[in-house]
C-alpha cells in the first residue's frame, strides 16, 4: 500500500490505443493512458462520455475490441481473451462502485473477509483480523455484525472501500463513488478516499466532485465522446483549460 514515487518511472497501468464499441457506438477511441504508482488520477466528463467504461476496462469488467492494456505487468487482450491474467489483475485492482454493490446476504464483516478467504486463501481468523482493522479505519467497526441494509449509504460505501482494501490492492478504481449518496454523506466517503490517497495508494477516480478532484488529484483527465480531450494538473485543467469542450464542460459544472 506504500508504493511511493521511487519507481514512478514504470507505469502500473498502460493503455495503448484502446478502442471499444457498443454495437456501432464508438465509446472509447484510441485511449492512450499511463499511470504511475502512487498517482491519483481523476477522470471527469459528462455522463455517457465513456469515463466509467474506461476504468471498467482496467479490471476487465468491460471488454474492448482493439489495443491493449497492461496492469502491473499483466496484459489484457481485446475481446476478453486475457485468460489467467484477468484474474491476477482483479486480485491486485480494487474497485468501488456507484451503487456500493455490497453483498446483502452477508454481514458487514463477512463482506470484507469473503475475498481474502476464498481468493487469498487466508484462514478466517487472519481475515477477520484484517477486516476489523480496515473497518475501524473507515469508522465502521461498531457495525461489523450488521447487514448492509441496516447501514446508511455513506457507511455502506465505506464498507465497500474496506472490502476492496482487504485484498491489499496495488491500484484502486472508483466509479462515481459518491453519486448515489445523500449530500450529507458525501463528505465521509471523500474523507476516507482522501486518507487513502495521502497514504500513497494509486487511484483512478471517476467523479463529479470537482472540489475533491482539485484537492486530491495529481492529474485530471477530461473525457468527451470517448476521447481524452485534455489532461493535466488540477490547476491546468480547472483554471486554465485549453480545449473549448473542456471549457464548456467546466463552465457548466463549476458554479463559481
Amino acid at each position, binding site marked *: 500500500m506504500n508504493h511511493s514515487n521511487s519507481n514512478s518511472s514504470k507505469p502500473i497501468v498502460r493503455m495503448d490505443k484502446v478502442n471499444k464499441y457498443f454495437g456501432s457506438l464508438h465509446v472509447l477511441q484510441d485511449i492512450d493512458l499511463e499511470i504511475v504508482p502512487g498517482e491519483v488520477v481523476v477522470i471527469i466528463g459528462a455522463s455517457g462520455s465513456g469515463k466509467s467504461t474506461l476504468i471498467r476496462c482496467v479490471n476487465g469488467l468491460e471488454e474492448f475490441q482493439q489495443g491493449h492494456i497492461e496492469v502491473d505487468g499483466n496484459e489484457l487482450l481485446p475481446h476478453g481473451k486475457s485468460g489467467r491474467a484477468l484474474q491476477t489483475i*482483479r486480485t491486485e485492482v480494487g474497485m468501488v462502485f456507484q451503487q456500493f*454493490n455490497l453483498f446483502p446476504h452477508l454481514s458487514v464483516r463477512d463482506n470484507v473477509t469473503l*475475498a481474502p478467504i476464498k481468493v487469498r486463501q487466508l484462514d478466517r481468523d487472519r481475515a477477520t483480523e484484517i477486516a476489523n482493522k480496515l473497518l475501524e479505519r473507515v469508522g465502521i467497526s461498531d457495525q461489523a455484525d450488521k447487514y448492509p441494509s441496516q447501514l446508511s449509504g455513506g457507511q455502506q460505501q465505506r464498507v465497500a472501500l474496506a472490502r476492496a482494501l482487504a*485484498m491489499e490492492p496495488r491500484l484502486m478504481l472508483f466509479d462515481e463513488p459518491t453519486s448515489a449518496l445523500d449530500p450529507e454523506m458525501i463528505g465521509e466517503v471523500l474523507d476516507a478516499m482522501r486518507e487513502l490517497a495521502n497514504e500513497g495508494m494509486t487511484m483512478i477516480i471517476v467523479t463529479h466532485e470537482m472540489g475533491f478532484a482539485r484537492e486530491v488529484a495529481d492529474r485530471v483527465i477530461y473525457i468527451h465522446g470517448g476521447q481524452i480531450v485534455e489532461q493535466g494538473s488540477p490547476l491546468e485543467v480547472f483554471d486554465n483549460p485549453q480545449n473549448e469542450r473542456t471549457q464548456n464542460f467546466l463552465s457548466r459544472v463549476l458554479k463559481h
Partner: protein
Amino acid sequence: MEVTFEFDWAAALGSIPHLLPGIPYTLLISFGGLAIGFVIGIIFGLLRISPLHWLRLPAGLYIEVFRGTPVLVQVLFIFYGLPQLLGGPINALVAGIAAIAVNSGAYISEIVRGGVESIERGQREAGLSLGLSRTQAFRYIIWPQALRRMIPPLGNQAIISIKDTSLFSVIGVGELVRQGQVYIATTFTALEVYLMVALLYLAITWSLSLVLRTLERKGLVGQ
C-alpha cells in the same frame, strides 16, 4: 319430492382413521418428487441461462414439454406406457414420484432461472472485481441470494405438486384420494369423506405455508 340431507358427522369423523394411511403416500410422492424436481430444476434452470446455446436448447425443450403437458398424462405415460419400452412393470409409487419430479422439475427450472437472473449485475461485478472466479461469484454471492428469492415461488410449486398427487389415484397408488375412494365404496358417504379428504390436504398445505412464511421471515434479514 323433497330431499333432505343430514350431514353425518359420525361418518365424517369415522372416516379419518381410514384416510390417514394415505397421508404417508401423499407426502412421500410430493416431497420425494419435489426433492428430485429441485435437483432437476437447478440443473436445467442453470443450463437455461448458459451462454452456450447447445446447452440452453435441450433445457428449453425439456421445460416446454413437461410444462406443456398435463401431469395426469405424464403419470399415465410413465405407469402404463414406459413398461412397454422397459419390458417390465413400474411400481405405482415410483411412477408417481417420477411424474412429480419431471413435472415440478420443469417449473422449478423456470423458478431457478428467474431467481438467478433477478440478482443485480453489480453483485457479480463486485465479486469478480475482488478476484473471485465466476464459479466462486456464483456460489458465494449470486446463488445464496437467488435461493432466498426463490422461496415463495418454490413454496407455491410445492403446494401445487402436493395437490397434483391427488390425480395419482388413477394408477392405484394408495394416497389420500385413493384411500377415500376405497372407503366410500363400502360406506357410500361421499360428501363426508371427500370433505375430510379436502381438509387433510388443507392441513398439509397450510402447515407448509406456515413453515415457508417462517423461512421467508428469517430470510429477510440482510435483504
